[in-house]
């Protein structure tokens, strides 16, 4: 009897969650996008790095990269213009909702392996730019492996609860009194380049410990790798300064003469090495002086 009651209650809860709305309305976006600006933002945001299965030799942005999390393996989506397996049949408003809200066109939440939390402040112009750039990607008519997590994580509607608890606004608001470069760095580090996604410790539910673990490093990244602490103090004690950090974001060289591998190697190779010198310097300036903590 008790089991039946629990099952009914559970089923009722899931149905309730399914009906619970989380999507915010997206106003029509009629701005003209700039392909170059969009491609630049896409690189900065890691779209190419995560949605390209480099290990498997997959085509750019065709997805398929597997992220092994404690809850199961999540596979990156195909973001090419293929209408069947990619985003070729989406409208720009669908794209805006996916990027800024982490929701599918049908309002189904994406797993937070997708770092949409950091893109919530993207402007309509930035969305239009990204959209224009994605339209230049050749279609790849191939599905990606289906993300198959164990219950209850398989219930994406359960992510609505997760979002209520752990979806935080990005810290991209400019700080008065700081230089333009510092604020640009803050915009990139806390937003598009989503450094905190890897470099912040997570709780048992996979939520970032934004109060106690911010930029303190993470020893249990998907796939078993680690990300070191990148608070300003930690960076200083590891021998970094603005100059060497900016140079590392271009080249991958660390102050010890080593070259980045792992996730950071991918970040540089597919992302930050394509940024302007000014933007890399801005990121380094902010990271070495996260003084509003």
């Amino acid at each position, binding site marked *: 009897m008790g089991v039946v009651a629990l099952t009914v209650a559970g089923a009722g809860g899931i149905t309730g969650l399914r009906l619970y709305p989380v999507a915010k309305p997206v106003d029509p976006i009629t701005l003209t996008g700039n*392909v*170059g600006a*969009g*491609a*630049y933002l*896409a690189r900065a945001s890691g779209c*190419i790095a995560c949605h*390209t299965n*480099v*290990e498997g*030799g997959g*085509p*750019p*942005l065709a997805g398929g990269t597997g992220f092994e999390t404690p809850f199961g393996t999540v596979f990156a989506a195909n973001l090419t213009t293929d209408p069947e397996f990619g985003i070729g049949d989406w409208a720009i408003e669908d794209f805006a909702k996916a990027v800024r809200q982490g929701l599918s066109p049908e309002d189904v939440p994406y797993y937070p392996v997708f770092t949409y939390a950091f893109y919530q402040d993207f402007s309509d112009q930035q969305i239009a730019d990204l959209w224009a*750039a*994605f339209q*230049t*990607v*050749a279609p790849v008519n191939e599905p990606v492996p289906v993300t198959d997590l164990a219950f209850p994580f398989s219930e994406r509607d359960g992510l609505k609860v997760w979002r209520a608890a752990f979806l935080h606004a990005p810290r991209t608001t400019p700080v008065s009194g700081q230089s333009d470069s510092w604020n640009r760095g803050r915009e990139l580090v806390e937003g598009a380049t989503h450094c905190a996604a890897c470099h912040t410790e997570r709780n048992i539910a996979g939520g970032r410990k934004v109060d106690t673990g911010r930029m303190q490093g993470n020893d249990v990244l998907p796939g078993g*790798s*680690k990300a070191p602490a990148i608070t300003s103090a930690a960076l200083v004690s590891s021998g970094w300064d603005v*100059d060497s950090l900016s*140079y590392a974001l*271009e*080249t*991958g*060289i660390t*102050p*010890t*003469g*080593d*070259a*980045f*591998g*792992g*996730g950071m*190697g*991918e970040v*540089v*190779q*597919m992302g930050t*090495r*394509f*940024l*302007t*010198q000014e933007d890399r310097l801005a990121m380094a300036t902010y990271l070495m002086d996260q003084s509003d903590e």
Partner: protein
Amino acid sequence: MKFKTLTFAATIAVLATTAVAHKGAKGMLLERMNGMLAMGKATKAIAPMMRGLEDYDADRTSDYAAILQTHSGDPMLALFPDGMNAAPSVAKDAIWTNWKEFSALAVQLETYATALDLAAQNGLGNAAPANSSMMGGDMTGMMGADMIGMMGGTGVDEKTLETLAGLSVNTLFVQSVQVCSACHTKFRAEE
């Protein structure tokens, strides 16, 4: 005499560091780990000059290129016989399952090292980044030429030695270490 003493002290220091970093490694395993260490130390030493923070010295560039040549290409590949892997090595088994790509990167590093030596007299350029074309406003789509190159397996553009030798030294240096990073990303386990 003083110079000899300093050299001896430096050698001891290097050996001591090596011993700590590669504790337990023997034979060929130790040899290849030391090769990587040597390239890292040389890179650390020359990076300030390549960044324009120290006066340029063509001989230092040639010496650096020689170190890279010693430890890249065929000499490097000879130290990775099929499946020879054990702690404390951080080599991934993917090296042997994807030997074609690994060996291409090793050869590519050797090519860049050779080009560095040939270009030593070119000196430092205007810090032209290796990928400046992407940012020059001529990016007509998401998949610029560099991106296609990156997906081609080696992580950097395929260029002829002749073309490379015409580049500025700092550009070649950046491209060389980007090969190192591309290789570490795919074939080195992170500790």
